[in-house]
């Protein structure tokens, strides 16, 4: 069923859902952006519908609940190792079409790369249901149409589109339909909005020859990129992490093991014992990241990793454009095929 509600009606829906769910959604943080008076839109647990930012594209992606930047997984006491507890209350995550597509990539790595499932990811994933935020228009740097992630199936419990102050919701899930119907909105057919064209377009070659790895196009990023790793941390499909043990200062035998987000752009990512390091320059790291997103992941799993959300371009302090790099790779491949 579809519903059209005013903001009070939507607030009622969210209020009711908060009894049974923790809700994570884009939230505008005033003045928290990287320039004076610029806001930052991050993911946070909300307590009221008015907190949800439905207009702007979030700077960070919806992966934050599923792959927290830092997560305690084990506790060490003197005699035993114990799994960390997790709040078992079900979770709703608001995300756009690209975010929902990205979830499939995260599932791929944590649940289906290798024989073992990641138990810490799985227990979070099992709590999650998705809410789709429709896209009434394309945003800066988006290229989801090229990446085929602009539309999504019905893998959401309800959708929300804010149109002229009204919430339009498609509610395929029966449990949620009861809540919407009780909130008193008008019943009408609703189709979530999807974009069909972006200003930014990319073309990815079908096959990327190994010779691209040594192509000079990467050299530019050795000087331009400052390997801050922000592109990785905002990327909805980046999943790398590092283990980190922390011990309490008042009892050095008791502590915890955490996993913390890792970036393939940042120093120490490839360090091995004794000082070996496999990718030293930022150009090499950029090549490693880009080819993963548009080639290596696909070779392994059969579909592209990058979903075209453009958040890496939005966040880059050096104004490096990922979509530009993809098109440069495409040009370089074409050139090589010709010659």
């Amino acid at each position, binding site marked *: 069923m579809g519903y059209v509600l005013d903001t009070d009606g939507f607030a009622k829906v969210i209020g009711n859902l908060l009894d049974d769910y923790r809700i994570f959604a884009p939230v505008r943080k005033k003045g928290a952006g990287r320039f004076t008076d610029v806001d930052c839109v991050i993911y946070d647990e909300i307590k009221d519908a008015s907190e949800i930012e439905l207009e702007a594209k979030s700077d960070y992606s919806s992966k934050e609940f599923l792959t927290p930047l830092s997560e305690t*997984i*084990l506790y*060490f006491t003197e005699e035993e*190792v114990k*799994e960390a507890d997790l709040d078992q209350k079900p979770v709703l995550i608001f995300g756009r079409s690209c975010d929902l597509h990205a979830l499939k990539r995260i599932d791929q*790595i*944590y649940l289906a*790369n*290798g024989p*073992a*499932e*990641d*138990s*810490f*990811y799985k227990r979070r994933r099992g709590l999650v249901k998705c809410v789709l935020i429709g896209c009434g228009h394309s945003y800066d740097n988006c290229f989801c149409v090229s990446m085929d992630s602009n539309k999504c199936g019905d893998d959401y419990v309800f959708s929300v589109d804010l149109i002229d102050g009204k919430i339009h919701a498609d509610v395929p899930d029966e449990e949620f339909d009861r809540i919407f119907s009780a909130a008193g909105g008008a019943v009408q057919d609703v189709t979530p909005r999807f974009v069909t064209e972006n200003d930014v377009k990319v073309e990815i070659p079908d096959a990327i020859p*190994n010779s691209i*790895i040594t192509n000079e196009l990467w050299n530019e990023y050795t000087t331009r990129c400052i390997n801050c790793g922000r592109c990785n941390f905002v990327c909805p499909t980046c*999943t*790398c*992490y*590092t*283990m*980190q*043990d922390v*011990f309490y200062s008042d009892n*050095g*035998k008791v*502590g915890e*093991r955490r*996993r913390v987000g*890792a970036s*393939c752009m940042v120093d120490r*990512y*490839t*360090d*091995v*014992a*004794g*000082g*070996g390091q*496999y*990718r030293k320059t930022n150009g*090499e790291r950029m090549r*490693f990241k880009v*080819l*993963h997103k548009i080639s*290596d*992941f696909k*070779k*392994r799993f059969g579909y592209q990793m990058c979903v075209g959300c453009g958040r890496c371009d939005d966040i880059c302090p050096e104004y490096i454009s990922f979509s530009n790099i993809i098109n440069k790779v495409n040009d370089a491949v074409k050139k090589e095929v010709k010659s």
Partner: protein
Amino acid sequence: MSGMNPYLPFSSKILKVIRHTEKEYTFRMEFTGEVKPGQFFEVSIPKYGEAPISVSGIGNNFVDLTIRRVGRVTNEVFEHYEGDFLLLRGPYGNGFDTDLYGKGETVVIAGGTGVSPVRGVIQALSEMPNASDKHVIVGFRSPDDMLFRDDLKTWDEKLQLTLTVDGAPEGYEGNVGLVTKYIEGLPLKDPASAKAIVVGPPPMMKFTIIELKKKGFTDSNITVSYERKMCCGLGKCGHCRINDHYICLDGPVFNYEEAKDFVD
């Protein structure tokens, strides 16, 4: 639930500590599960973290882990001695199929701590009835850096061992030179069908393979094993990925026919 948690380490008793050099010790750890040479364990010491360590020996109730004191985690391991416990996860990775190297001419070339993952393979070769066509070239940085000295003596008796060091003080009577120096002179009847295993630091592996190819070895008869930063051993953490391969899952042992296209 805990049974399904692949990150939960088990406690393993240190049965014996064998000192090789000032920095390298073998820890004989209690272990009774299935394990192959070339596989690795995540050795964890609460307070410091985890480090991937390859299996350097296998017995009925133990695995040997040869550890070099080079990082934060491995430094702490050296504070643990016989009777103490370490936390382990694993084994991970594919490891070597020792059966593959029984027939025909075989050369194992290993440098430094790269001897650990192939030690089980060399032991298997040395126990074969006629090991006259089994060659082993082992290189260490200096005479003081030699590992598995007792093994080296046995191997020298049972198969064709070339032991060399990169450099040595004056008066040293053994071979001095990189492992690559000894490939050309290998007395092989048919290099094109001989098998080779190469494990060591990246530059050593690169130049060893160049020499092997010059000698007439084919790519598909060369096996390599890679050392990378494997934080999880489970294909999740991403650190060990090269192209579309996860070293911890698809390796660390690869046929060179496949591995020649790997670029870090």
